């Protein structure tokens, strides 16, 4: 049953961050959430405490230490080698019970989105997901800002006072933090809750080989139905390779079978927030804009100068993608020497 933290007399002013790792590789978003955590801790007068859950996590612990956190709590166990919603909620709730933070931040990644609601329900906290701004309000409670209606509006979320506040933070919203390192470390044993073994991970299948997933890439080259067929996406893959980018696609292109739905960016696809998004032959239907409008810099290449994508684009080229994209690839390659 849930562990009550409500009105806990022992609640500290600390900010706990969930430092997500897979295969001992820290997720880049974990370094980013330390940045708002430090700002919150400066206001509450508490410490930034990192929590690393897994089996072998030495490299991940080293990486989060260099973000300048003030303490690191690990939960290491062979049973935690792969992510399981049940085992990880048990582990994270145990760290929360031990450290009694005032605020818990997770990255709004696949893992963070899956884990945060379970942990919030278990610890009887308040929760806001995918937040882009965080502050401690005048009443001392957390207040955050987040996109709603697929980015067509933003709203604030006020947390109740005297109750644990949990927020997942949208990746690529904050810069990665750095610091001196050398934070004290503590390991908590993994004390399984009966039933934790009910989720049995059979296989983790890497998809797409060396090409990155759209949700973890800093640069995305994306194509629409104007690509005409699967084979023509080769042009985008060539540019993506030069830019170390992922390849995305519109719903129209995925529905037409040019690319798998795992690459679909948009309302019913993936929401992405890369540093650079290059939309090739994408007109900019609301469905698509919902998934990529949070990108930092947007480039549009389209033959139709009235296409809605140009309203959102920082840079636009009105032209034939079959000529422009190879020229871009050649230019990037030339500059790289």
């Amino acid at each position, binding site marked *: 049953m849930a562990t009550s933290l409500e009105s806990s007399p022992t609640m500290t002013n600390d900010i706990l961050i969930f430092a997500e790792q897979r295969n001992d590789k820290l997720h880049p978003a974990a370094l980013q959430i330390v940045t708002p955590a430090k700002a919150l801790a400066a206001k509450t007068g508490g410490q930034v405490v990192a929590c690393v859950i897994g089996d072998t996590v030495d490299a991940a612990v080293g990486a989060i230490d260099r973000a300048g956190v003030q303490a690191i709590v690990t939960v290491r166990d062979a049973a935690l080698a792969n992510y399981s919603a049940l085992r990880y909620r048990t582990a994270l709730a145990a760290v929360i019970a031990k450290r009694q933070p005032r605020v818990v931040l997770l990255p709004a990644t696949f893992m963070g989105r899956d884990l945060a609601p379970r942990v919030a329900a278990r610890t009887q906290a*308040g929760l806001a*997901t995918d937040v882009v701004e965080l502050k401690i309000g005048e009443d001392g409670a957390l207040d955050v800002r987040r996109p709603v209606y697929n980015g*067509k509006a933003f709203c604030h979320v006020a947390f109740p006072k005297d109750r644990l506040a949990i927020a997942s933070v949208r990746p690529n919203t904050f810069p990665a933090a750095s610091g001196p390192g050398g934070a004290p470390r503590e390991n908590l044993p993994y004390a399984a809750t009966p*039933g934790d073994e009910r989720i049995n991970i*059979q296989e983790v299948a890497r*998809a*797409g080989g060396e090409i990155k997933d759209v949700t973890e890439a800093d640069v995305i080259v994306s194509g629409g139905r104007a690509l005409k067929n699967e084979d023509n996406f080769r042009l985008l893959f060539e540019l993506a390779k030069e830019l170390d980018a992922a390849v995305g696609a519109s719903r129209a292109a995925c529905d037409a079978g040019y690319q798998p739905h795992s690459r679909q960016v948009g309302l019913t696809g993936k929401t992405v927030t890369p540093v650079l998004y290059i939309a090739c032959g994408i007109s900019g239907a609301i469905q698509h804009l919902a998934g990529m409008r949070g990108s930092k810099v947007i480039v549009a290449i389209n033959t139709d100068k009235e296409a809605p994508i140009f309203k959102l684009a920082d840079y636009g080229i009105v032209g034939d993608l079959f000529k422009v994209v190879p*020229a871009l690839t050649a230019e990037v390659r030339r500059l790289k020497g």
Partner: protein
Amino acid sequence: MKVLVIVRQVPDSTTNIKIRPDKQDIDRAGVKMVVNPFDEFAIEQAVQLREKRQDVTGVTALIVGPAAAGEALRTALAVGCDDGLHLQDPAFDALDELQLAALIATVVKGGGYDLILIGKQEIDLDSGQLGPALAELLDLPHVGAVVKFELAADGKSFVARRRIEGAEEVVQVNLPALVTADKGLCEMRYPSLPNLMKAKKKPVKVMKAADVPGWPAIAGHLGGTKLHTFQPPPERPPGKLLDGEPDQAAKELVRLLREEAKVI
């Protein structure tokens, strides 16, 4: 084996969102409401199980919302759900996602549901909280963002594929369990007019706050967040259109991305 599908009613994705003058919500006047697209995938999966499997004896669709939300429930019944449960009380309007999870958990606990299906997120608030939180409160395992679902022949477990960054996880879970549906699981069939008419005859149980055991204390011990100060998204400064031949335009774009935007 009994299946429960959670349905949300949301503004159509093409709706132009306007913010109320007091900034405390969006302006809902004249907004077209539809079944949450991710919940459609969950509904279709439930209905397909009902059709293909003798051992699936019933699919109940549950919605929390005002009388008008009954329309979304009727869509679920028209495509093949057997009966509906409509939690309808103005007192439920103020609940946040975690409190909604607590409400639903209280109502369905002991209902004998072996499988609960729900969309991975709702496209109005985009929070994605309800599925995993409900699983936690019901002490069920959950598998999130599922793109493929196969029920074992003995009906005691399933294998699901779920998307994670750049990979897919294959997960085996014993029932009872909760699954959240992602795009790719299945597309909901179109509710035909005759079936929409027939759906009006399917049983829908309406529950008020007074019918919920332990209300309102069950929602008082968690969540409690309040939305405020709605704003339009920040305006993007007007972009630069690059002219000229493809080679020239490409060169200029790469220069601007390096020197001005500093992103490559």
